[in-house]
């Protein structure tokens, strides 16, 4: 298997998600290469080597720095041809999804996306794809090469494998006419007012167990300390404690962050279906019989008013 990993960077940092995929690729044992496109990528090659890339293909080009997908399809198609890769892996992002799908059409190559994992089985690759709100996993495969796989954000930890300096190759493909059509004319980097609920890695949600609207500051402070977003249950939105935009559940938003902290939430199914595929669920509730404890990774029976301020303090202390 010759595996190629699409690496993303922002400024002078490689994106953790794609590094995780690179590390996973390296663990599959075969020779792994990475491709980097944009400005300042030459300087990042060594880092890619540390995370498992034996070879790094570079398309150093300032004009390609804006995150438009189609030129990257041209680059990847060229690299796949030049390097004879039979597998291309992507970590999900707004950009990567478009690149992967475009490449699929360019090469008529099968793409399995929304994968949580992949394994090598009898010399072949099998992808693991969660379905029906993560209640079931589907094994998916490819019927031809190259195989394209798009992994859910955060599926793998970015663990450096201690690899040495990678072989470096330059690629300068010819770009299709339509690839140069879309141009970024302006970019506004967002002030960290906190991530949106759907994109946040961490969500702290409050329910009726908080007792009153004023107590929502507990959730807000904790979210700030953790760098997460604040969510709310339907009950508290109905009661006017928090806006509808923050409502998580069947008739609100669906989220699947890395960490979901539920404060004073009973866990009725209407809420559960909006957050049950969160990677880790921590809940605090006074009622030992609250249904939420049945699907929490860590359930704490206790008073949010006592626990949360202490928790927020400890986290702030830890981060500084």
């Amino acid at each position: 298997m010759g595996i190629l990993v699409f690496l993303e960077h922002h400024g002078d940092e490689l994106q953790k998600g794609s590094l995780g995929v690179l590390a996973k690729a390296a663990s599959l044992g075969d020779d792994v290469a990475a491709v980097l496109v944009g400005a300042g990528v030459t300087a990042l090659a060594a880092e890619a080597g540390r995370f498992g890339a034996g070879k790094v293909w570079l398309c150093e080009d300032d004009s390609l720095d804006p995150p438009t997908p189609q030129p990257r399809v041209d680059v990847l198609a060229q690299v796949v041809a030049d390097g004879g890769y039979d597998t291309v892996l992507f970590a999900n992002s707004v950009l990567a999804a478009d690149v992967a799908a475009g490449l699929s059409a360019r090469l008529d190559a099968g793409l399995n996306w929304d994968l949580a994992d992949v394994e090598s089985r009898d010399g072949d690759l099998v992808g693991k794809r969660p379905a029906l709100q993560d209640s079931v996993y589907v094994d998916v495969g490819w019927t031809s090469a190259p195989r394209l796989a798009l992994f859910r954000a955060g599926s793998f930890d970015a663990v450096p494998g201690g690899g040495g300096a990678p072989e470096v190759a330059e690629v300068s493909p010819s770009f299709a006419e339509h690839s140069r059509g879309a141009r970024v004319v302006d970019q506004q980097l967002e002030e960290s007012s906190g991530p949106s609920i759907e994109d946040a890695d961490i969500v702290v949600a409050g329910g009726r167990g908080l007792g009153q609207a004023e107590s929502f500051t507990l959730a807000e402070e904790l979210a700030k300390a953790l760098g997460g977003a604040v969510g709310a249950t339907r009950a508290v939105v109905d009661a006017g404690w928090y806006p509808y935009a923050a409502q998580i559940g069947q008739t609100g938003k669906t989220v699947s962050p890395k960490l979901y902290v539920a404060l004073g939430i009973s866990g009725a199914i209407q809420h559960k279906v909006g957050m049950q595929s969160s990677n880790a669920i921590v809940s605090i509730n006074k009622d030992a019989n609250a249904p939420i404890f049945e699907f929490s990774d860590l359930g704490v029976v206790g008073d949010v008013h006592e626990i949360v301020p202490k928790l927020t303090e400890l986290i702030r202390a830890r981060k500084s």
Partner: protein
Amino acid sequence: MKIAVCVKHVPEGSSRIDSGSKRLDRSGEGALNHFDANAVEEALRLRGDGDGEVVVVSMGPEKAADSLRKALAMGADRAVLVSDDGAAGSDLVATSRVLAAALAREEADLVLFGQQASDADGAVLWAAVAERLQRPVVSQAMELSVGDGSLRVKRQTEFGYDVIEAPLPAVVAVSDAINEPRYPSLKGIMGAKKKQQDVLSLGDLGVDATEAGEAGSRTTVLALAEPPARGGARKIEDDGNAAQAIVDFLAEKRLI
């Protein structure tokens, strides 16, 4: 201006996986994918009361006509359904081929997609279709304006906003933040039945049977499995140390 909107008929209510085909059970009631409603709405806003045309295009079983009718009821002018047994079981490669063939026939100035499908089957379709049509593609559009043979999109990314321009014809996937889809009016619902609805086969599109359906796909579904166990759920009572216990847990899971 001619705008084509790709829409999907998705299973409604609680979904099930059919244990035979290992695919989503689509035999029950279905509805217009609600993310596609945003795309239809945006197309209708761009056309306004002018003399442009909004065509909705879909690939699916016969009952997908219901979803197309809903789009017509919202105000779309015409509907095209590609319905052919040979297209069943199409993956991204096969679906994008079929849709691209249908869209090529339309020669629209702008092709719109909804950002996501609630059944997660169409989630990356637009970029593949754009590639086959050889058109620029922009996704995650939260604002879209068109004029002078080009478009302008404001899109949401993980880091903030980008503003992108592209020449028409182009393909755009709109996010659900772009608008609030209108309810079809009663007049709209009643008028929908009179609007033109074409049903095409693969043959009508010049797509060979080997290029669609399972034959034309490059991925396959192998088996259903249990999700990995939610390893070691713990429940503790606060004895004054709960906060520390939580921090330890978060550290252990490398969440902080």
